[in-house]
């Protein structure tokens, strides 16, 4: 069993858990993920590692309540345990000195991008960051990103905080401004990563995305997380999760992510009925 050492709500329906998993904490690197299973009835879901502390033996995960598993997870308290916590999985983010790297985070993508931006900064890269969300109450870790960035632009779709609009607008402006950008790292909802990749493509700037495909085992055994990259079938879990955004077949990924929408709803309602838990917990 893996104990939840502490928990915190970062934004509306977005939660942070520090989980006791010393062996995982010892090996974790930016860009990797873990697979969790809450209990005997639970499904296995992947979550990107948001941080880790080798000394304390903890791994930090950040997740948004979107379906049955994340709602069940959100109902747990510090001191509770989850049955399974496997990792660190996937190939770590490629970190070396590229020059100037633009880190673009959308929504919950702020969590996985933070350690990557930090690692890139430690390698001597100049970091420019763009952090976007639908509205102010969904933004978090502005401070974390700011601390490793030379410049940080914040956007909200509704204009409730920072600049009104979506992340691709300042991204395009940066590329237009004559600023020499050597690499873009974009992490967030698939649709946001798709448009970031589309934005950078005409400028020929390498754009790395972290794909959040549905997984079961997370170790290359089932092939559920397969994606098409450069016309080849690849497994997000063992070949990724990072891929060249210009090569990803985004429409296929988006379609595969929608496969279980109805079942997600059914599982959530079933859990709510079984446990008497109400609607998703509010921030």
């Amino acid at each position, binding site marked *: 069993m893996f104990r939840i050492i502490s928990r915190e709500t970062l934004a509306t329906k977005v939660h942070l858990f520090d989980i006791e998993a010393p062996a995982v904490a010892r090996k974790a690197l930016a860009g990797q993920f873990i697979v969790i299973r809450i209990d005997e009835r639970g499904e296995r879901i992947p979550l990107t590692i948001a941080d880790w502390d080798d000394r304390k033996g903890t791994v930090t995960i950040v997740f948004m309540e979107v379906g049955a598993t994340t709602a069940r997870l959100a109902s747990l308290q510090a001191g509770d345990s989850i049955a399974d916590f496997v990792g660190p999985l996937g190939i770590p983010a490629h970190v070396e000195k590229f020059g100037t790297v633009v880190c673009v985070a959308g929504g919950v993508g702020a969590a996985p991008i933070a350690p990557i931006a930090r690692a890139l900064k430690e390698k001597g890269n100049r970091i420019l960051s763009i952090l976007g969300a639908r509205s102010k109450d969904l933004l978090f870790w502005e401070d974390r990103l700011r601390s490793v960035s030379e410049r940080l632009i914040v956007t909200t779709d509704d204009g409730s905080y920072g600049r009104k609009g979506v992340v691709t607008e300042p991204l395009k402006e940066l590329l237009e401004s004559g600023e020499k950008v050597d690499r873009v790292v974009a992490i967030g909802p698939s649709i946001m990563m798709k448009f970031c990749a589309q934005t950078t493509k005409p400028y020929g700037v390498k754009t790395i995305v972290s794909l959040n495909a549905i997984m079961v085992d997370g170790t290359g055994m089932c092939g*559920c997380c397969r994606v098409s990259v450069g016309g080849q079938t690849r497994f997000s879990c063992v070949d990724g999760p990072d891929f060249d955004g210009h090569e990803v077949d985004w*429409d296929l990924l988006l379609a595969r992510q929608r496969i279980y929408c109805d079942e997600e709803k059914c599982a959530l309602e079933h859990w709510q009925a079984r446990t008497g838990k109400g609607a998703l917990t509010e921030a």
Partner: protein
Amino acid sequence: MAKLNLNREPMAKQDPGTRGKNFDEVALGYSGEQAVAEAGRCIQCPKQPCIDGCPVGIDIPGFVKAVVDDDMPEAVRILKDKNSLPGICGRVCPQEVQCEQVCTLAKKEAPIAIGRLERYVADWEIAHPEAINREEQRVSSNGRRVAVVGSGPAGLTCAADLAKMGYGVVMFEALHVAGGVLVYGIPEFRLPKSIVQGEVDYVESLGVELRLNHVIGKIATVDELLRDGFDAVFLAPGAGAPMFLDIPGENLGGVYSANEFLTRTNLMKAYLFPEYDTPIQVGKRVAVFGAGNVAMDASRCALRLGAEEVYIIYRRSQTEMPARLEERENAEEEGVIFRLLTNPSRLIGDEQGLVKAMELYEMELGEPDASGRRRPIRRPDTEFVMEIDTAIPALGTRPNPIIPSTTEGLELTRWGTIVTDEETGMTSKERVWCGGDMATGAATVISAMGAARRAAISIDGFLKDGG
């Protein structure tokens, strides 16, 4: 010479109409009377060809005689002396091409039903846990430690053998439960999970320490295991990575690798959704590509999950099918439809990206190919389209890349398997042995166990020799 009894004792099965709707075990096993009657047919011939026919060399005449003598603890002891997993082997071994094929009575087409007797003895032990004194089996530790990577048939066998020799064994498993393909792949109705758990419990009772949720190559590399106090490493991670069709549409929604389909169903219990959280989608018409045991398992799971029509699509003919006859017959009895000499050319999706049809074409058989089987050849202008809701490629697996890509100095074959000495299981890397599908490519449970046994002997020899 006493008169030969050529009446092989049949084993009861659940009725096809009933069993096609449940996940309970299909084959019901022998009663005590049946077991004694079947065992009594053994003529205890002096040549004992069955022992050579067994990849792990079980003293088959010995345990069969113990059944006749009603000395069940002795039957268990003899079985477990060579096979730590008899409940599993009694159910899934292809006895018809091993021990039973060479049985002296096979010449009269009535070989002793060795597999069924093995199962009977194993199930008796599970039902009588008090009959065997576990503590007596514990050997004093010799102070040496071996890491076993994977807890499938090879891992369990090697771990048990080494523990019995006095080694301190830690067995690492990537998933949240031990058993490997025995729990994620083979369905409940063919191999109940409680049987696998019983065998895992037995291996743990020998002193083996099981660490779940440990993906070796990630949480620790093979080199780190060797550095951190293990004297040797036995690699048995399986050949887990599924192969796809390499045709347009293979990534549509509703297209599952057999591994994924079976993992969701068996390991994650998707058949109990939404009581269990993992979903699975099975439409009315399901196509399974391939005709091995895994294809039979997937097709029979699809029926039980509510499919109305399940097709096995296979490019060769009945004679070349790799599945065991018993599994083929079970599938047929339950209503699986076989479309032989047929191959898919593409899968067609709807506007949501879900599979809705497949295009097939007909094949004919030409000259034998490298595998000795007649080569299937495409018949021109035979394309036709069939509507389906679910497609399941069951085309075999390739080696998983995690261990090869994280271990220095492991020589690989061009198929990505680890170069392994067949006799000893040694790899090109010092102190590292390998067995099971990772060494041979996809094969049977018992051949993996045989390789694991040989590796355990080799590891013991190496370490005793001052290694």
